[in-house]
């Protein structure tokens, strides 16, 4: 590009979407007001496990203002177990017992919160009144809550047709762990328990459905992260053509993973009821429902061992773990596969033997939530290395450095299969500079002195450092259509959904550079299946990577069309032209320029002929599918002060050094990382789902389930290194989940350091932690 063209790519551009959001004019699902609209509420099971004897809605139907009430038996043939969203990867010997949920329980309930009936009324208030009118008879069965107990003979069966509560069993290995262990100088074995929580976006889920009988058109506004998938799914179950179904994901108030699950029962029930009643229907999940009706991520138990040589080099890792998949497993194996793969981290691990068993429990369904199982794996390897460092008397940073994959080893094949069915191969990376930067930024070299000095003043400081890699930007593909409009503005449409990632700006930056216009002149549409028909969705840190590259490809073609048309217009060579300021100009000839708007009109003429083999308009639709995921990496470092009596803590310093390849917008990237770290802090020290033995969630409110506030999340210092991905033309890697991934081990390590726990023989092998839990661990140790 010539110097006249402004480069937006890489610049901290302010967001196009902000103005609507700042002035209260952005449309969220609950903002829709349609004349004649009815309101839905769902009756949910209050017991975790039981035979469903009867659900009687007759009293509800008699209530004034109630229009309809349905149970599973009213659904007829529409009642079907839902689809499998992600099939298991082609791993040899994989066992996978697919059991998906239906939209209303029929014979059995399997978790507290499972829908039993839906009421449609003139207001949500009345619909909630009517829920109390419904008579439910359930013959209670023992709840299945504990993962180990669930696998014991005689345990109650979540799915009676299976002989056990095994949802899946997968073993992946590389090399020979037994041989590695045989020659090891040190073997460290530990049991780890890691629980992730709920995504809890500030906007809960919601569905508005409108069946237009005369047009034969079903429109569904949904808080989904994957509108095209949902459209296709709805068309299939309603026996409609894909063109008869429009799914719109308007502004969505955060997603973080669970909003991609499909089908949520309400996503079927609300449209179904709309077709029955021929009225628009709104269902908005309330916060209480969100705690059980939206998917969780939850826990794993790992029995892991690491074999090391005398210098602390890893010879092998063996891990056997249990994964809680909840009552059903519609999302396949994504979460535990991510745990299995991400455990390997940025380290050379010559022998790896990992086996997991996914376990059915009578708890809400588990699907990916920001990090998607990666946290669990990272916790295991980082904690193993900390313990190894202590036992081998090697500095924790040094033991990590010794095991990093060297920069000349890329692409680095881990020889196991990743969640996208491709071999787990790291495309590019350069890990040591990241570690060095993080150590510098946190002041690692001088910390021991600082710590000693602080201790003499009665202050207990602790430091921690943790590595991670993240497979991002996986396939299959995304597409985009870019069009220069006759008014000079450029429209971009893509099939992914947006929940705050800044797609309206980063895609505009990409396009603005290619066609030579202002970022603010680019209008991006995401999440409307009538605007773009194809796509997969926003998940796995892939929006910018996959859709971004599709946008770039389409914009590149439009750029070529602009140049060709302008060259015809000026009767000059394309090389003599430059794009910028919304116009095409002949290089070095001021005044000889043509606006993009004028070219757009010329490209769609009223008279004359469009030449054979050409298309009208300055428009292109292109697709991009990466051959494999792009591997981002990073290091987090933290200094905390712990109150040695109360065991409360304060984060004094937090550093993130991150490599996500080429950066499109550093401001938006920073926001993604800040938000990820905040959720990581919540996971590590605040958020714990408390279930009792009966499978009841005891802290289902935002007063009791603790999301971090502005006083709990510290100021973060961010630094970057850039190792472009060779797998896409823009060289970008995903960044959405990275911030959240390594925070757990950081807390464990820092607290141990601050309180000198290792010297007392106390190890922190679980997440989440809390002052109350630390008290238990410390007092139990005596």
């Amino acid at each position: 590009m010539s110097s006249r063209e402004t480069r937006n790519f890489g610049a901290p551009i302010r967001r196009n979407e902000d103005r609507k959001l700042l002035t209260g004019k952005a449309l969220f699902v609950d903002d829709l007001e349609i004349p004649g609209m009815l309101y839905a509420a769902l009756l949910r099971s209050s017991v975790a496990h039981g035979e469903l004897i009867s659900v009687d809605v007759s009293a509800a139907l008699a209530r004034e203002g109630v229009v309809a009430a349905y149970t599973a038996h009213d659904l007829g043939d529409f009642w079907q177990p839902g689809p499998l969203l992600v099939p298991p990867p082609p791993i040899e010997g994989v066992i996978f017992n697919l059991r998906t949920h239906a939209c209303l329980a029929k014979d059995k309930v399997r978790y507290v919160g499972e829908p039993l009936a839906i009421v449609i009324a003139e207001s949500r208030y009345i619909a909630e009144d009517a829920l109390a009118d419904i008579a439910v008879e359930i013959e209670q069965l023992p709840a299945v809550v504990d993962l180990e107990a669930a696998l014991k003979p005689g345990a109650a069966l979540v799915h009676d047709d299976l002989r056990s509560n095994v949802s899946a069993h997968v073993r992946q290995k590389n090399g020979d762990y037994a041989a590695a262990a045989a020659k090891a100088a040190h073997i460290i074995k530990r049991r780890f328990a890691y629980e992730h929580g709920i995504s809890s976006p500030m906007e809960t889920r919601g569905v508005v459905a409108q069946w237009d009988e005369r047009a034969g058109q079903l429109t569904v506004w949904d808080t989904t992260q994957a509108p095209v998938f949902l459209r296709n799914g709805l068309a299939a179950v309603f026996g409609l053509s894909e063109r008869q179904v429009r799914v719109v994901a308007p502004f969505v108030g955060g997603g973080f993973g669970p909003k991609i699950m499909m089908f949520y029962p309400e996503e079927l029930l609300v449209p179904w009821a709309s077709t029955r009643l021929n009225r628009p229907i709104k269902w908005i999940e309330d916060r209480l429902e969100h705690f059980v009706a939206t998917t969780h991520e939850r826990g794993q138990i790992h029995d892991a061992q690491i074999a090391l040589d005398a210098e602390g080099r890893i010879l092998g890792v063996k891990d056997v773990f249990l994964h809680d998949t909840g009552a059903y497993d519609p999302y396949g194996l994504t979460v535990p596969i991510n745990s299995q793969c991400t455990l390997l981290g940025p380290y050379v691990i010559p022998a790896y033997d990992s086996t997991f068993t996914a376990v059915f429990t009578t708890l809400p369904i588990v699907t990916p939530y920001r990090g998607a199982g990666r946290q669990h794996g990272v916790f295991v390897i980082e904690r193993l290395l900390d313990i190894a460092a202590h036992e081998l008397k090697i500095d924790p940073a040094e033991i990590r450095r010794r095991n990093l994959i060297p920069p000349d080893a890329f692409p680095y094949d881990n020889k196991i299969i990743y969640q996208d069915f491709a071999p787990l191969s790291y495309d590019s990376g350069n890990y040591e500079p990241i570690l060095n930067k993080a150590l510098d930024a946190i002041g690692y070299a001088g910390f021991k002195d600082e710590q000693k000095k602080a201790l003499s003043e009665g202050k207990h400081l602790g430091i921690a450092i943790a590595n991670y890699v993240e497979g991002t930007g996986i396939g299959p593909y995304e597409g985009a259509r870019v069009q220069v409009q006759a008014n000079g503005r450029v429209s971009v449409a893509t099939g992914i959904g947006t929940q705050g990632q800044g797609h309206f700006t980063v895609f505009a930056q990409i396009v603005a550079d290619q066609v030579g216009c202002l970022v603010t002149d680019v209008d991006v549409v995401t999440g409307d299946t009538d605007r773009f028909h194809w796509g997969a969705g926003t998940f796995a840190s892939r929006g910018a990577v996959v859709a971004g590259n599709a946008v770039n490809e389409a914009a590149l073609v439009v750029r070529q069309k602009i140049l060709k048309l302008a060259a015809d217009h000026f009767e000059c060579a394309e090389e003599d032209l430059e794009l910028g300021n919304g116009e095409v100009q002949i290089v070095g000839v001021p005044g000889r320029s043509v606006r993009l708007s004028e070219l757009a009109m010329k490209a769609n003429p009223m008279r004359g002929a469009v030449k054979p083999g050409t298309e009208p308009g300055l428009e292109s639709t292109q697709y991009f599918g990466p051959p494999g995921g792009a591997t981002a990496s990073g290091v987090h470092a933290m200094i905390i002060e712990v109150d040695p009596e109360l065991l409360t803590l304060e984060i004094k310093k937090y550093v993130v050094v991150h490599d996500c390849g080429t950066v499109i917008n550093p401001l938006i990237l920073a926001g993604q990382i800040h938000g990820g770290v905040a959720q990581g802090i919540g996971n590590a020290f605040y958020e714990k789902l408390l279930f009792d033995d009966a499978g009841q969630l005891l802290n289902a409110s935002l007063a009791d389930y603790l999301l971090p506030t502005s006083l709990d999340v510290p100021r973060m210092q961010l630094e970057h290194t850039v190792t472009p991905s060779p797998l896409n033309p823009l060289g970008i890697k995903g960044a959405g989940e990275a911030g959240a991934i390594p925070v757990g081990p950081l807390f464990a390590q820092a607290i141990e350091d601050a309180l000198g726990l290792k010297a007392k023989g106390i190890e922190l092998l679980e997440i989440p932690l809390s002052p109350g839990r630390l008290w238990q661990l410390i007092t139990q140790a005596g």
Partner: protein
Amino acid sequence: MTDSHTIAVTVNGVRTEKSVEPRLLLSDFIRHELMLAGTHVGCEHGVCGACTILFDGFPTRSCLMFAVQADGHEIATVEGLSKGETLHPLQQAMHDSHGLQCGYCTPGILMTMSAFLDSNPSPDEHAVREALSGNLCRCTGYQHIVDAVLLAAERMRT
């Protein structure tokens, strides 16, 4: 069965009369009766702060009041914050500092923190964080919001 009460409320400077059922939450009244959907609802139990409005000038959770209680009172919502096309300095600073991502918590934060700035023209970072602590944000990690409030304070002082 429902008794209804006629209330007169001044919202963003405009007086409105409506008939409401006693149990109608003020948040629902603002959103679905007055059609001012910029005020968002995140929890309906007074924790998340998304529904914060100004009630007689004070930041208040609109999910913890009934519409009927607003009779004779003044309400300000996010829709009234900008002056025509000109954003409030805090709105502008939120844009400039990238203080919002999904934007769902943003209206509540704007109402809380614009009132805070009115009475605290020169806050330090801790004071900002303390004032912000009743508004949950799940996207930003708060850092850019804090930056935005400090930036707005600086601009409003000069």
